[in-house]
């Protein structure tokens, strides 16, 4: 079963079989503008909720993307090294940022579902 959660920081977390894939929302990529660089962490890095996991850089500025939950990075989207604009063109698809384990699944309960998230940015 797959379920997607959203944070107030405009990230999405797709949970599938105990692994979470994390990216930023369409709203977030639109706010940031054209991305020119994504600083990716190493797989194996342990993250606590709220830690900076990835830094995305637009033409103008750098922005942090935070870990939405505790866990360990299992993979990063290597395609972004060559083409950071994937985050703009497909934020919920090919522009995903990293995958991580879930140290504490109960942390998901505090996040929004899609309907609540859409309402929050409307």
């Amino acid at each position, binding site marked *: 079963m797959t379920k997607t959660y959203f944070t107030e920081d405009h990230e999405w977390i797709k949970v599938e079989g105990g692994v979470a894939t994390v990216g930023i929302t369409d709203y977030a990529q639109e706010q940031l*503008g*054209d991305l*020119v*660089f994504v*600083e990716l962490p190493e797989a194996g890095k342990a993250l606590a909720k709220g830690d900076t996991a990835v*830094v995305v*850089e*637009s*033409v*103008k*500025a*750098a922005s942090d993307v935070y870990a939405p939950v505790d866990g360990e990075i299992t993979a990063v989207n290597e395609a972004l*090294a060559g083409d*950071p604009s994937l985050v*703009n063109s497909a934020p919920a698809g090919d522009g995903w940022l990293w995958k991580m384990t879930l140290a504490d699944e109960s942390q998901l309960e505090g996040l929004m579902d899609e309907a609540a998230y859409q309402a929050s940015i409307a």
Partner: protein
Amino acid sequence: MSDTATLKHLPLEALHEEAGARFGAFAGWRMPLTYPAGVMKEHLHTRGSAGLFDISHMQLFEVEGAGAAAFLSRACPLDAEALDQDRSKYTVLLNESAGIIDDLIVTRLGPQRFMVVANAGNAAKDEAHLRALAKDFDVSLTALERVLLALQGPDAEAVLIAAGLDLSDLTFMTGTEPAPGWFAARSGYTGEDGFEVALPVGEAERFARSLLDDERVQWIGLAARDSLRLEAGLCLHGQDLDEATDPASAAILWAVPKALRERGAFVGAAALQAIIAAGAAQKRVGLKPEGRQPVRAGAPILDDAGKTVGHVTSGGFGPSVGHPVAMGYVARALSEPGTRLFTEVRGNRIALDVHPLPFTPQRYHKG
């Protein structure tokens, strides 16, 4: 950042809203940062066709009177008496220590009349400074209320002709008054051929719409204005120039006539002479970061031993060159193009090479 409640509004704000602009605060104004096309496309459109910028936040001053030329030659390291009719000159306002209060464009409109275009963020400071100096001269200084539009790019001249404003007689850095209350110059801040047109507020919407009706024209926001000027190697006052920098270290001595460097009577002349004689300790240079990661203003510049030898004053990504671009100040001994330096971004060491400016070839219409 200014409080959004106290921001000044552009006269054509409704037109930008209509175009879907995203706004942000800059120099006390609510300014369009980007339009739906986005900074990358806006930047490339300007270099490829014609970009329209609303720069009405900038301040025009008209200087008039028998003492106008003498006054400007006192206020700026400029030989205003020798400036030809219609000719524009890039210059600066200096304090007594030769620190740069602002950078300006001065255009001669007549024997006793000049137009001065100043930066938004410094307009009030400039006006106070100029008014204090003006007391000793037979001159009047008028802050003009105008809309100022820049049309930049290879199609700019043809677009203006199609809109009924033929400025093809102008060459780079000349200006004219095409109608009462209007001022137009062949200049800009993108490195491209282009024009800046100031006009009365009441006539501005009609004129802007006539330009926008041309399919070659797109609105361009402040974000792309910044990446364009950075690729073109042009300074932004408040970042690359300020009162702690002087024309010698800022590498804009070309704007100061040789004779004036030695015996000028402008404010800051003695200090500038001393700086030139001693040799500026630091120099502004272009910097090309290795790889894809942008290096931003404020980043330290390090030598290969890790010692701080300067700092970045502007940095971002250059959409036309396809790599990060930056400018900064480094110790003079390290300012030769090709010198390898370093910076640190979030703990990562990044190589920076001193790079000649501009990053993109300037394509001014020199006639």
